[in-house]
């Protein structure tokens, strides 16, 4: 399953693992991520030209806490790979000051996907030009995708006084509007 990768990538740059669904899966180091992904995309024998998705799994409280997953595919048509094949690339990210390098230079699709990583998991994406929240409101606190983020937040209920007018004030305001319409 991994012969093609072994022939085309430098030895030791990736670590193959078994995945339960049978999809070829490799771990990459954070430092070698961008270079290896570029090799995976551009080497003619590999040509994983399509980035299907980027996602993250939070294994709190284990350390390294996060695993960022890049789903790649070779489409098997028109210059985007010879045969259809898939690859799952994973990167381990520690829980303290978590960050991954950006791959927006390789795939334009990574832009929003990496913003979602930041928004949901608080993973800083180094080199991303526009790292803002994407799904949650801009002033949201916390990163809801994390396992230690509470599912139901119990905040004290805010009470507002309803607007009340006395009877005299009400009559006076009616009278005032009548006077206005007469003029």
């Amino acid at each position, binding site marked *: 399953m991994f012969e093609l990768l072994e022939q085309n990538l430098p030895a030791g740059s990736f670590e193959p693992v078994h995945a339960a*669904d049978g999809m070829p899966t490799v771990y990459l180091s954070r430092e070698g991520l961008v270079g290896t992904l570029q090799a995976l995309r551009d080497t003619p024998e590999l040509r994983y030209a399509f980035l299907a998705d980027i996602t993250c799994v939070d294994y709190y409280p284990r350390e390294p806490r996060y695993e960022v997953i890049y789903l790649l595919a070779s*489409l098997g048509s028109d210059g985007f790979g010879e045969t259809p094949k898939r690859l799952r690339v994973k990167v381990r990210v520690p829980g303290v000051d978590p960050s991954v390098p950006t791959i927006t230079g390789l795939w*334009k699709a990574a832009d929003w996907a990496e913003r979602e990583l930041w928004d949901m998991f608080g993973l800083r994406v180094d080199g991303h030009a526009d790292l803002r929240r994407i799904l949650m409101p801009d002033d949201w606190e916390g990163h*809801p995708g994390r396992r230690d983020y509470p599912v139901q937040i119990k905040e004290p209920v805010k009470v507002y006084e309803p607007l009340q007018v006395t009877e005299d004030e009400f009559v006076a305001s009616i009278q005032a509007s009548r006077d206005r319409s007469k003029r």
Partner: protein
Amino acid sequence: MPELRTETMTVNMGPQHPSTHGVLRLVLELSGESVVAANTTIGYLHTGIEKTAEQKKWQQIIPLVERMDYLGAQSSSLAFCLAVERLLGVEATMPQRVQDIRVLIAELQRIASHLVWLGTHALEIGAVSVMMYCFRERELLLNINEMLAGFRMFPSYFRIGGLREDIPVGFHDAVNAFLARFPGKLEEYQGLLTKNQIWLKRTKGVGVLSKEDTISYGLVGPLARAVGVGYDVRRAFPYCGYDTYEFDVPVRTAGDVFDRYMVRIEEMRQSVRICKQALGRITPRGVFDIQDYRIVPPPKDKVYTEMEGLIQHFLIYSQGFTVPAGESYVPVEGPRGEHGFNIVSDGTNRPYRVKLRAPSFYACQSVPQMIVGGMIADVIAVIGSTDVVMGDVDR
């Protein structure tokens, strides 16, 4: 002569705009009538379904995922079921009849989704009557859903390990009646649009995205097939026995709004072909799940008469079933392209992480690239042609 002062104008389009297919917000910078910059804001429909799914049992997630992409509900649930079934290792024992029914329902769903797309897309460009005709045919498909499961938009008919129940009496007649009627109606829509001068002027050469950009933006499905990338999950990574069906994958080359329209029209025609083949294989009565009562509920006569059936019934409905630890991603070809769930299980009766590969999310991201440099009227045509569903974008 005084100097003529010119400046660009910023226009806020959405989130409450009928042509943004829900709650997409675009901030457009206009120079006269041409768009010089565009900024997209999403998230207004974020409901946190992926986080909610972590609290639910596996079987309870199916109604949730159907509400993500609300026009292609049953392709979402199919993708989810396939991913879980791969972890459970029950793919090999899945009866052929279940797979055929799933193919049939998924293709009917594709037609229903494309009909909503065609209707709203044409309406936005100005062809109001097409919308009425499309929704008329879609009504028949919703009736079939109601017949299957008692629910029109989100039937939750696919279950992990098979189907909810057997197909109802009269199902074959209802589907046959639709399949006999629909190809003629498709000709009618094409008669109204394909050679219509107004339609051609609004769509030809509009919103062009190059082949490289299309793939770089992660757009597959009809958008990629309109620019000459003939990738189809049903062909490249067959599931549910799609490799045994005869159908063509329509491919066009211009990559503009018009070719996207042509590709989707042809896809509907191919879906009818697949449906006819699938319906011929489905017997009116037969097995509808894997009959492994640790995963699917046992039939009621077993529950009422056998001790074991009763125990399994209570286990399923109180605790659900556990899924072996691991992760799984099985894509399907949804109406909007590759649709799949990357699920992670830690071996319990609830998922550890569920993540949808949402085709609309990526399509939405590419909208600014397609509209900058064009006219403001083309913005509507381009958004319509990407067929974004905001429920799928924001999840």
